[in-house]
C-alpha cells in the first residue's frame, strides 16, 4: 500500500527533524515570568502608596541614590555573561575569573544595601512599621535583595564546586540558566531603582 509507505517515510523524517525546545530553558523562562508577576504586585503597592504616608520620614528626606551599587549590579550582568561565554568555550580559567568578579560585584551590591538600611534604621529611624513608605520600601527592596541573595548562594555553590575541581563544563546548561536568572534579577533592579529612587522621590 502506497499510503503506508508514505507513512513510514513520513515518520522517519519527522523523528529526525523533531527537536522541541530544551525543557530546562522553558522551565527557567516560565519561572522568570511568575517571578515577574510577583514583583509587579510589590511594585504596584509601592506606586499606590507613594505620598500616602501619614508621618515621616519621607523618601525625599532620607533616600540617596545608590549609584555605585547600581553600577556594580548592572555590570555584574556583563561579567556573568563573559563567564558563561568562557565556559561555553571551555576556557575554565577565564570562567573562574569572571565568575569571581560577578560574585564580588553582587556582594558589593548586597553590602551597599545593608549599609543603606543600617543608615535608614539607625539614623533616620525609618523601619518597616514607621509608615507606608517604610513598609513598601523595605518589602520591595528586601524582596529584590532576597533574590540577589539566592542568586548569590547559587553563584557561590558553583564557584565552590569548580574550585574543588568538579568539571563544571558538564553542567553548562545549568550555569547558563543561573546566568539568566541573574540577568533577571538585574532587570528587576532597573525597575525597582526607577520606581523607588526616581519616581518615588
Amino acid at each position, binding site marked *: 500500500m502506497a499510503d503506508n509507505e508514505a507513512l513510514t517515510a513520513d*515518520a522517519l523524517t519527522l*523523528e529526525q527533524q523533531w527537536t522541541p525546545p530544551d525543557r530546562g530553558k522553558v522551565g527557567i523562562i516560565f519561572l522568570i515570568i511568575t517571578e515577574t508577576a510577583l514583583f509587579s504586585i510589590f511594585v504596584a503597592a509601592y506606586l499606590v502608596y507613594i505620598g500616602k504616608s501619614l508621618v515621616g520620614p519621607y523618601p525625599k528626606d532620607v533616600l540617596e541614590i545608590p549609584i555605585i551599587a547600581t553600577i556594580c549590579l548592572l555590570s555584574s550582568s556583563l561579567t556573568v555573561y563573559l563567564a558563561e561565554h568562557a565556559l561555553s568555550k571551555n576556557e575554565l580559567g577565564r570562567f573562574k575569573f569572571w565568575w569571581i568578579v560577578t560574585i564580588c560585584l553582587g556582594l558589593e551590591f548586597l553590602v551597599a544595601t545593608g549599609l543603606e538600611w543600617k543608615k535608614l534604621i539607625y539614623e533616620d529611624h525609618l523601619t518597616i512599621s514607621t509608615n507606608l513608605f517604610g513598609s513598601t520600601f523595605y518589602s520591595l527592596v528586601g524582596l529584590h535583595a532576597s533574590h540577589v541573595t539566592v542568586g548569590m548562594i547559587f553563584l557561590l555553590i558553583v564557584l565552590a564546586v569548580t574550585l574543588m575541581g*568538579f*568539571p563544571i563544563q*558538564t*553542567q553548562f546548561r*545549568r550555569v547558563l540558566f543561573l546566568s539568566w536568572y541573574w540577568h533577571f534579577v538585574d532587570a528587576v533592579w532597573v525597575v525597582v531603582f526607577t520606581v523607588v529612587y526616581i519616581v518615588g522621590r
Partner: protein
Amino acid sequence: MSHEIHHGEAGERTEQSHIELPHPTFWPMVFAFGITLLCAGLVTHWAVSAVGFVLAFRAALGWWHDLIPIEKYEEVPVDPAHRPAPIMVETRTVVRLKLGESGHRVHVPESARPYSAGIRGGLAGGVAMAGLACLYGLIAQHSIWYPINLLAGVVIPDMGSQSLEQLRAFNGLAFVAAFIGHGVLSILMGIVYAAILPMFPKHAPFWAGILMPLFWSGLVATTLNILNPVLNERISWPWFVVCQLAFGLIGGYVIARSTNIHTMQSWSIAERAKLEAPGIRPPREDSDK
C-alpha cells in the same frame, strides 16, 4: 549513559529489555516537609523552623545529588506480560454527509459570502439608516443632531434631563457615542448576516431583509423604556420602523449581490498547498476567487 529513545506507531512494541526512567527519590518530599516546617515555625515555635531548615537543607543536598553530575536513572524492565492489545483496524465505515459525494469529513458550508461583503453591507445599511434618521430629524425637528442625541441616550444618563433645545444642538460626546455605537452595531449586523446567508433557503434573504427589522423593532419596542428612556419618550415609531427596514433591505442587498467564494475549509492542507495528487476529490469549477 545511553539515552536512546525509540519511536514508532502508537502501541508498537520494542525489542529493548529495559527502559530508562528517573530514579525514585524521597528528597523532594523531605524538602517539601522542611519548607512547611520552616513556615510553620512562624506560628508555633522557632525550634520548628530550625528543624525545618535542617531538613530542607539536607534534602536539598540529597536532591542535588540525584541530579549532579548526571541525573540518576533506573532501568525499568519491559514487561512482556503487560503489553497493550494491538490496535485493530475498524470495520466501521463513516457516513457521508451527502450521498454520492466525498464530503464525509467537512467543514461546512463549502462556500460562503466573504466577510468583506458583510462589512460593506453593514456599512451601507448603516449609512442608509442614519441618513433616513437624520432626514427625519431635519423634517420633524429641523436638526440633524436630534436623532443622534437621542441615540446617545442609551449610554449617556443626562440626555434624559435635556431640553428640546439642547437635543437639537450639536453635542460632541453624544455624537461620538452615537457614531461608535451605530457604526459597530451596523458592521456586526452585516457580518452576522453575511455569515448566515448561505444557510437560508432561496428567497429567504429578501424576506429576512424585511422580517428581521420588523422583529427587531418589536423587540426594541418592548424594552425601549429601559434601553433608552430618552428615545422612548420622543420616538416616532413609523420612522423608526422605516429606518430599520432601510437597513435590512439595503444591507441585505449589498451582501446578496456579492458572489459566493469557496471557503476551502473542506480541503486538506495538502490540497490547499496543491501538494496532493488530483483525484482525491471531484474537480470544481470556481476553485478560487
